[in-house]
């Protein structure tokens, strides 16, 4: 089983993992949001008969 007791270094280990999860999550979210936005715009233009 995983050992989640990081003492006495919890103040360093958890922020390192937390910030990594946050930043990677933001990078993924931005890539997915940009993909959806431009795909929707292309679809709209194509439906308008461009």
């Amino acid at each position, binding site marked *: 089983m995983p050992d989640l007791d*990081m003492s006495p270094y919890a103040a360093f280990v958890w922020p390192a993992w937390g910030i990594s999860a946050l930043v990677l999550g933001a990078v993924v979210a931005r890539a997915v949001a940009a993909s959806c936005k431009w795909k929707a715009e292309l679809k709209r233009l194509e439906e308008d008969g461009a």
Partner: protein
Amino acid sequence: MFGLANPQRFMSFTGPLTPVLWVIAAVLLAIGTWFSFVAPGDYQQGDTVRIMFVHVPASTLGLGAYAALGVSSFFALVFRHPLADAAARAAALPGAAFTALALITGALWGQPMWGTWWVWDARLTSVLVLFLFYLGYMALRSSIDDEARATRAAAVLGLVGLINLPIVKFSVDWWNTLHQPASLLRAGGTSLDPVFLLPLLLMMAAYTALFLAVWLSSIRTEIVRRRVQTIRARMALDA
């Protein structure tokens, strides 16, 4: 390989590949995280050794993404290929994020082990320079409205930044640094204990799959964005 330089062929090839990479990245991240916390604490570093499982992959991908950016910049500059420019542009943001993570997690590891968040030693400083190259590349691109000029200027900067990659990699060998020498990729094999090597390799594979998924997805988005711009320009001409 060069057949993929055609944007349409690239789109049809990467269409089914990108979701597979997202799934591989998610699964490897879950397994890697599990093994990272199952591994015992190091006899000297205690539980801070678990920072290595997010720090080393972030550093490696920070360098790897810049190599992708630099090589793509070369093809964009020499062959003026739009897909190469899209590839360079798409590598910048994830690369900057990985490098920022390497600096932040390195500081969080350095404080309990070295007694300081930061030192101006060769490794840390050269990684900071790498981060500044990423920021400069993105700032330069967004500061020039003319896409052709932005591509050329950014490609030159991307190429110049390649000089920094061997400096980052070999800084710990060329100079006397507080940062430890390479323990994974080094002559004579790894010096890591197998209990730490497995989670580290899993997390490296997870970060690599994640970068590839974000990179391919962003290149595809860039191709779609340019198609939209072309259609808009054609509509403006027709109006």
